[in-house]
């Protein structure tokens, strides 16, 4: 048979129903397309905000990676520093006027500058800490170079800004931090190739300073690391034990409900309140040291606790109950079931929650201000009770400073902070992936 097969057509009523559905389809598809567009628009907006933020920070801060230096020829008077046996006498080295030595050598090169005010203006080109830096350098070396040497000395932050194009030459002299005369000197030095921009290693090896060219983030970074160490040490075991208790042992009832509600509330408490609590309890009542990373870590631990508890409970609940049943069915006690089976399986989630909580704590400023970690501290802390500051607080302090050079340094410090945060979050993702494969 060559005739096409005659297929059964639906009856008129069914046909009409299909047509009605078909009519509405266009509208429904359009609605879902619209929703998709809104979603994309929202993501694009969010990403562009992020891009603007990052661009601003990077464009403000990337210049801080370099520092301007100036070459000076000078002779160090060894006889004024050494003992009879040729070693450097620390007392003599400390009392010696290094700044005077450098300034004198520098002035000697501009013999035409004689007026006192002009000489002072000339001195302002050099960093106020140039003498200190030189002393440290000589002391570290242990010997004094003989004869005239050519040294690279840090310039003041104003010269640094000029060299980086962050000081507008066209501005009226009265509104500039460098006079026409000073700019003239600098230009002549540049022409002689005696000014250079080098990698700013001070930024990564020093603590805070009044002079931007001598300030660094190491002190704040170590302070942050110490505080976070204390935070993890306190918050992780407390949070995991709390979560295990609430999930496995707590008898259902009003008390448990009350605890649960309050843990969730704590997660929403503004962090400065934890700072006030730390101030009143840890410093006021227990008399613990002010500005110490130990206390900072304890306050941050309080703040991080609810985050880790909530994450731990969620990941414990995500472990299939069949595993718990299997362990209990074999006669494992609740504790054995939790430790042998549930916690290992929940570990990736707990770890992620912890790292995210710690990352949050790393970026926290307000509670640390309350317990005095906002102080101006020029030493890198060596122990948990040494006065210290933390990275975000350091950024806060610098962004509040008048010097333009601190502004770019605070941007660079933000980049350092962001690098730590991103590293932590990436490691959270990687660890989770690594452990999840086993499961």
């Amino acid at each position: 048979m060559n005739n096409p097969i005659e297929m059964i057509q639906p009856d008129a009523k069914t046909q009409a129903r299909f047509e009605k559905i078909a009519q509405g389809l266009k509208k429904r598809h359009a609605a879902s397309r619209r929703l998709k567009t809104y979603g994309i628009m929202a993501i694009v907006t969010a990403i562009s905000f992020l891009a603007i933020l990052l661009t601003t920070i990077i464009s403000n801060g990337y210049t801080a990676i370099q520092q301007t230096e100036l070459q000076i020829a000078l002779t160090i008077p060894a006889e004024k520093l050494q003992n009879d046996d040729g070693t450097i006498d620390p007392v003599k080295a400390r009392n010696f006027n290094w700044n005077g030595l450098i300034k004198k050598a520098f002035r000697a090169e501009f013999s035409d500058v004689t007026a006192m005010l002009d000489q002072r203006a000339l001195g302002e080109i050099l960093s106020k800490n140039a003498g200190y830096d030189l002393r440290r350098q000589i002391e570290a070396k242990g010997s004094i170079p003989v004869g005239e040497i050519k040294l690279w000395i840090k310039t003041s932050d104003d010269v640094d800004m000029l060299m980086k194009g962050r000081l507008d030459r066209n501005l009226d002299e009265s509104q500039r931090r460098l006079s026409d005369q000073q700019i003239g000197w600098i230009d002549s030095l540049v022409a002689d190739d005696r000014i250079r921009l080098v990698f700013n290693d001070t930024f990564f090896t020093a603590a805070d300073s009044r002079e931007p060219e001598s300030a660094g983030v190491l002190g704040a970074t170590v302070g942050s690391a110490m505080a976070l160490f204390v935070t993890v040490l306190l918050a992780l075991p407390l949070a995991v034990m709390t979560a295990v208790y609430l999930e496995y042992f707590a008898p259902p009832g009003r008390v448990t409900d009350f605890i649960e509600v309050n843990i969730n509330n704590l997660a929403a408490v503004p962090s400065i309140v934890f700072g006030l609590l730390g101030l009143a309890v840890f410093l006021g009542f227990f008399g613990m040291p002010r500005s110490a990373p130990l206390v900072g870590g304890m306050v941050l631990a309080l703040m991080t606790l609810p985050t880790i508890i909530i994450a731990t409970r969620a990941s414990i609940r995500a472990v299939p109950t069949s595993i718990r049943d299997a362990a209990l069915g074999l006669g494992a006690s609740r504790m054995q079931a939790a430790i042998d089976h549930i916690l290992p399986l929940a570990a990736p989630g707990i770890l992620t929650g912890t790292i995210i909580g710690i990352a949050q704590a790393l970026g926290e400023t307000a509670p640390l201000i309350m317990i005095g970690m906002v102080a101006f501290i020029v030493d890198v802390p060596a122990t948990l009770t040494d006065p210290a500051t933390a990275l975000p607080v350091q950024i806060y302090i610098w962004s509040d400073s008048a010097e333009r050079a601190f502004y770019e340094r605070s941007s660079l410090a933000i980049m350092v902070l962001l690098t730590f945060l991103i590293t932590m979050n990436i490691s959270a993702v990687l660890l989770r992936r690594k452990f999840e494969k086993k499961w």
Partner: protein
Amino acid sequence: MDTVVDMAKAIKIQAKDVNVFYGEKQALNNVSIDIEDRSVTAFIGPSGCGKSTFLRCFNRMNDVIPSCRVKGSIMMGDVDVNSPQTDPVLLRARIGMVFQKPNPFPKTIFENVAYGPRIHGLAQSKTELDDMVEDSLKKAGLWGEVADRLADQATGLSGGQQQRLCIARAIAVGPDVLLMDEPCSALDPIATSVIEELISELQQRFTILIVTHSMQQAARVSQKTAYFHLGTLVEYGDTKDVFTLPKNEQTEAYISGKIG
């Protein structure tokens, strides 16, 4: 309602007037039953009839459900299962359980079987533990398949193998009663028949209580069958009698496929 007991075999467990509540809702209603030693007793009935709930009464697994309350007495020898003085940990060492879905620990095959003896401190040495694991896997009919890959992940086994591993894991502790909650419901027919054969073998050593949705399975593996309906034990007797000459209309309707 009277229970029919074949006096040829000794009684292993005696349950009397067991009532189970989930909050306000009553799930089991005055269930009394005598379980014979070294036999297979099947619990059948439509979904929600309380047969799984009843099974979980024997090793107190209902304890983990916060709203669940169990009333009545279940005596196993001189142990009162339901008494607050009875330690569920000890009880579960005496009564093993196999669950509906194979639930091996995400560890190695060896670790799965060794876990029970380890937590109860049953093995004095590594060799003893090795022997126990081998023995249990042999009893569960899995040794031949896994002997050379004990260090492999248990989750890599097939569903049927996983379930036999769970059986091996349960018997490694050395219980004398085995509870099986629909052990074959997640398995294909071939794996199911392997497990059923295994159950018939295990019956030599263990008293087995099995919940099943498959009436054929109940008929094939069990000596005794209990039919549950809406939380009550409707009929209990020798499997061949329950399936061929049910005394109760509901039982007959269920068995012949009219309800359920």
